[in-house]
């Protein structure tokens, strides 16, 4: 028997790090995509977490101990994320988990987390099926695809009520989720979908797709694009002379800090609408400071993924302090009852696990994102319709 035990330990000793007992810090588990196709967003997470970490630790950490982040790289793959839950919870015994980045990975870890009765705070996964399980252990800081679609539809209804819409979406989980959400939302208010087109990201040419859209002659286009595809899409929209009255979008690529600047789509970005979860110019106290701190450290402006990660860690720390315990179930109850009235990401309060985060509609005007909807947050009026390309 001893021989077997030795063999078992021998094989596993390489794979396992010794769990620390009575450590001087409190570990919080983070799963994100440090490598693989989504590594850029994993990096945004990491940077956002780093700022929150320093801020919390400077104020004394949680329960008198400093926080330490325990990262697990899911390599942008859902199955690896599930393995991460096991590593962080079963082995490192973290009391609360943050992550993952993508909707796929996050959806995949929901059952594993619920099974282990450990609270999970989701910073960025927008697909709505992430929240389908109704598990009491799952909390989402960001707004979801349904919220994007609803906000966009509400904006359209308040501003000219167009009749015909085209959806152009990236053929991934993000794109398909947002396409489905918008399809449902548009049907509800009687907007006709004249074209629903998908595309493969990383392709250098979308002109054929845009030609099909042009043929359908929509009033509105709703782009669900993840990355810098947004730049190519807008450039090629100009090239095929595609002229809807509204260019709307589900954020991300269309809400990236570089998108309206010369480093991104430049002038082609003008007049595009986008949903947004957060902007450095947002009215919430601390937004500008977060932006400044981020720029100082990382030499680039943050997109909302970074601040959502920041907010998730703030929630975790606050909950631990409120719970006065590292017991996962007590932390869960504390997250449920959390009421943070002022963070740089706005007020945070969960309703059935979902943070009621307002979705803003922005428009690029003179190379700047300006909030145009809802009325109480608007900085300026939307410019409608977008001028045709030949008149720009």
């Amino acid at each position, binding site marked *: 028997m001893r021989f077997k035990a030795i063999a078992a330990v021998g094989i596993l000793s390489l794979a396992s790090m010794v769990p620390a007992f009575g450590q001087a810090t409190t570990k919080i588990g983070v799963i994100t995509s440090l490598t693989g196709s989504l590594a850029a967003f994993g990096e945004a997470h990491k940077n956002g977490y780093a700022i929150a970490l320093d801020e919390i630790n400077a104020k004394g950490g949680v329960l008198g101990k400093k926080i330490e982040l325990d990262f697990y790289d899911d390599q942008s793959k859902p199955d690896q994320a599930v393995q991460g839950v096991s590593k962080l919870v079963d082995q490192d015994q973290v009391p609360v988990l943050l992550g993952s980045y993508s909707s796929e990975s996050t959806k995949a870890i929901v059952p594993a987390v619920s099974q282990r009765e450990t609270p999970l705070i989701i910073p960025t996964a927008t697909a709505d099926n992430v929240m389908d399980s109704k598990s009491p252990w799952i909390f989402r800081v960001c707004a979801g695809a349904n919220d994007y679609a609803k906000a966009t539809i509400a904006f359209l209804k308040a501003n000219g009520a167009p009749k015909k819409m085209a959806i152009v979406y990236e053929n991934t989980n993000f*794109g398909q989720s947002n396409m489905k959400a918008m399809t449902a939302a548009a049907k509800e208010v009687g907007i006709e979908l004249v074209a629903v087109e998908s595309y493969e990201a990383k392709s250098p040419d979308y002109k054929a797709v845009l030609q099909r859209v042009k043929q359908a002659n929509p009033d509105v286009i709703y782009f669900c694009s993840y990355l810098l595809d947004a730049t190519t899409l807008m450039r090629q929209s100009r090239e095929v002379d595609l002229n809807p009255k509204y260019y709307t979008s589900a954020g991300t690529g269309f809400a990236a800090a570089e998108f309206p600047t010369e480093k991104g789509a430049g002038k082609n970005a003008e007049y595009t609408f986008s949903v947004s979860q957060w902007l450095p110019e947002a009215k919430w106290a601390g937004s500008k400071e977060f932006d400044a701190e981020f720029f100082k450290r990382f030499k680039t402006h943050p997109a909302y993924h970074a601040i959502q990660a920041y907010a998730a860690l703030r929630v975790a720390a606050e909950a631990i302090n409120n719970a006065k315990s590292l017991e996962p179930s007590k932390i869960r109850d504390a997250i449920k009852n959390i009421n943070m009235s002022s963070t740089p990401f706005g007020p945070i309060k969960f309703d059935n696990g979902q943070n009621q985060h307002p979705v803003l509609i922005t428009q690029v005007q003179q190379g700047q994102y300006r909030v145009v909807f809802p009325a109480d947050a608007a900085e300026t009026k939307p410019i409608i319709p977008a001028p045709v390309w030949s008149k720009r």
Partner: protein
Amino acid sequence: MSLLKSWKFWVSLIVVLVWARMPWFIRNNYQLQVLFRITLFAALGLAWNLVGGYAGQLSLGHVAFFGVGAYGLALFADLGIPVWIAVFLAALVSTAFAAVIGIISFRLRGPYFTLATIAFAEVLRLAATNLNVTGGAIGLTMPGLFVGRTFWRSFYLAAVALAVISFITNYWASRSRFGYYLMAIREDEDTAAAVGINTARCKLYALLMSAFLTALAGALYGSAFQFIVPDSILTIDISIQIAIITMLGGAGTLLGPIVGAVLLLTASEAFKNVFQESHLLIYGVLIVVVVLFLPEGIVGGLQHRFRKRIKPPKDAKPQPVLGGAAQ
């Protein structure tokens, strides 16, 4: 009776028993999960070995069988078929699919065959991404083959069982007439055909067996991780992983896939915990080093060296020449 006298049989039996008892010795579910992955990939490596090792047909499309296993289980179970029956139906569908792939791609040799298998797997991935029935890129929730507190332990034991079945299949292939036919095909397909071996049929049978086992592994894997998307269950990365494990462990050897799975997956998990962003780089270096210095894989290389020392000239393998059987 001769089996009971063989020391190898008893050693194997002890190894299997120890392996199966592993959950009783290890500390937590994470280690169990890593062990599950190692065991499952050992099974996959052994299944791949039938085609890639013994028959020398280097498939990089095995993820297609793996994916059909997982998707098949989800879809059949969705129709109300009991899960374990669904698993076998999925494996049968995968085998039928393998027949189609095999009939088309086995007409091709060497790199052409390899590329054809990649193409089939990619077509499946794209189809799964675009079809509604497979849930598109949004994915499907998998039915649980096991539930409850002993979740991982049960999955682990199922993986061990699958690895044992795969091992026995390999053992049989390494000893039987069928296995010798396969090896003859690997060494020189034209000569094999000339001496009367029905090469097409042999290769196809090997592929069918391999696909069946691979699909079972896919169903297990998908169910263990509870949720599948095309990018996790039909990605070429899995084909590559299976091939790397077997080739680096030693293709065409009985122990190679097992050694490869244990070493590579343990290393990759350890690297991930230690090196963070640079773990893939270290993994890449490991692959390059093994290819450079252990051309026949770890087990193949050791066997070769060992045998050489005992009886040098007779048993020494001839070095493959440029433009040899591989082309």
